[in-house]
């Protein structure tokens, strides 16, 4: 799931097509070809209301190893509980593995969507929607990519998420502890 800045449900979804508004998929300061999402399950829907304080951002808003020792953030010091945020949901299986193939003359690449576990110090359940080529994960700094590739990937990302994002989710499985707990 991914939180949005939408306050009202009718702001989140286009009334005509019932698709998520693309401005709520990603803000200009973020990168649609490296999109943060959270695995729903152990991390519950209500936890989206967690908002890091400036101190919390400095101490906790960083990627980390899955088994890194992290001091638990403190309420009202490292984070506060903000107003209820609207969010949307995507099934990982529906987007993982989706392909973009770009070819124009001799300029060609194939990128595959990969939903990766990218834990952060404040949230172990942080994941990222990224794109991968034969040379590895596409660097998320847009300046490192050809402009036309960025344009194509960004557009395909928009379409992909528009197609599969939903604003309500039915029952879902909670990941088995054996998948993430060390012995």
């Amino acid at each position, binding site marked *: 799931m991914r939180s949005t800045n939408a306050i009202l449900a009718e702001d989140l979804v*286009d009334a*005509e*097509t019932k*698709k998520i*508004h*693309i*401005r709520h998929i*990603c*803000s*200009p300061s973020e990168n649609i070809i490296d999109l943060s999402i959270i695995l729903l399950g152990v991390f519950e829907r209500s936890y989206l209301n967690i908002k890091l304080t400036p101190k919390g951002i400095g101490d906790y808003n960083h990627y980390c190893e899955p088994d890194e020792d992290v001091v638990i953030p403190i309420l009202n010091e490292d984070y506060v509980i903000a107003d209820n945020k609207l969010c949307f949901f995507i099934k990982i299986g*529906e987007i993982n593995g*989706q*392909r*973009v*193939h*770009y*070819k*124009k003359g001799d300029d060609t690449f194939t990128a595959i969507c990969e939903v990766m576990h990218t834990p952060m110090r404040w949230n172990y359940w942080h994941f990222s929607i990224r794109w991968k080529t034969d040379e590895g994960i596409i660097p998320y700094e847009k300046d490192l990519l050809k*402009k*036309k590739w960025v*344009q*194509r990937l*960004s*557009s*395909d990302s*928009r*379409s*992909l998420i*528009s*197609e*599969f994002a939903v604003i309500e989710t039915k029952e879902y499985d909670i990941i088995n502890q054996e998948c993430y707990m060390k012995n």
Partner: protein
Amino acid sequence: MKLQNLDTSTRVLDDSSRMALIKCIATLGSYRADVIQLYNSNLHTSNSNKKPYYEETYELTEVDKKYIHIEKSLKKQWQELRSFYESDVYDLLKNGMKQSLPLLLDLNPNKISLQISYDKSIFYTIIKNGITIYFDHFIQIEEDMDEVVVNVYKNKQKIFSGSSSLENSYQKVQEFYLGETLPSFISNDELSQ
């Protein structure tokens, strides 16, 4: 003067004739947009005893009403997003919309929406007969830059993806709705120029 939808049954035309027709649709669509602008510009007021010529003869079609509705949506979205862009981007977006929207409305979609992306593109979502087309029109035209990215989904499966000029992309979408067979995704990764 009565503006109506053009007959876009281009199946019997060869490629060059089809391209010419597509350009014609775009041009007329833009002209029609200007007429609508004029119609709504309050040139005739309740105080006027004499109705202007165009009000006596011009009838808004359902397509015109859709056009007006979507244009209002563009304007509203711009108000929300303008802080992210340079001021001249709105004119670029609007001119881009005047090129692409008439073409897409001519497909007679069941549903259509327009959104402004953060990449200076006009992102259309078109739904017709259970097929969803995402038509992403990039309005900042630079040399060697693709102008439109098209993604087509049916039953949650991507069945087509490609990028090309506006005219080529529209033609591809039009062929799709006419029922012509599309090359498979693997072999048709790029719309032909």
